[in-house]
């Protein structure tokens, strides 16, 4: 299964020294992201990707080797993003 961002260009993003406030106009919600979350979302705004590809990308960004725990956390955030309407499954 692959994920892609949903209406990424609609989001209003403010960078606060590598922490981000993200206003989502279609839900009226405001989110707070750290750098890793923003990396995930902007990565998915460029192309659809699987959980494994996202983990690989984030590992390269942070210089950390991915482990099962890391992948589980990424997957949880992906489902959370999906529930918020920030990403969707590729049809």
């Amino acid at each position, binding site marked *: 299964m692959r994920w892609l961002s949903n209406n990424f*260009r609609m989001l209003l993003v403010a960078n606060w020294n590598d922490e981000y406030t993200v206003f989502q106009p*279609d839900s*009226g919600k*405001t989110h707070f992201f750290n*750098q*890793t979350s923003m990396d995930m979302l902007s990565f998915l705004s460029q192309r659809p990707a699987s959980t494994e590809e996202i983990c690989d990308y984030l590992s390269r960004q942070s210089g950390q080797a991915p482990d099962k725990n890391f992948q589980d*956390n990424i997957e949880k*955030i992906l489902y959370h993003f999906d529930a*918020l309407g920030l990403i969707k499954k590729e049809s």
Partner: protein
Amino acid sequence: MDKDKLFEQNNHSASAQKMCQQSSAKKQKRRMLLKGGAALPVVMTLYSGAALARTSNITGEAASITEAVFVNMGNGPQLLCVLPKEKLDSGAYDLGDTPGYTLITNPPIHPLTDDPATILAKKNEQLENCHMLGGIMISGAAFTSIAAKTSAFDNLMIL
């Protein structure tokens, strides 16, 4: 100042300092978490009444037809087609103080006789007709937010 009072004052001062240190440690921990010390993603969402407190009616089009609002006035679901005042540079739409809308009746949807695939196809056709009028579909969340502070959508029954 007697000895007991001095002790009490020092004690208060020490406990205030301790509280301050604890608060600072908590803040530090929180900063570590937010900064992603272990490169873990963090997402927090403001679920307060902020959506209802918006002063303008700015929204995006619903992401898909399945999220759009349909109204049933007794003759089947009709797409709520909202007519924006203008499209902003960000891609969002400003619906104005009192959003205008029209219900799309064509093609008519018959929930009791149409199969799910037909209903979906007809909903998409209604969306095309809405776009031809310059309108957009909005999500349930956007509808709720706007309906809470304007009377524009009063008396609509949402499916």
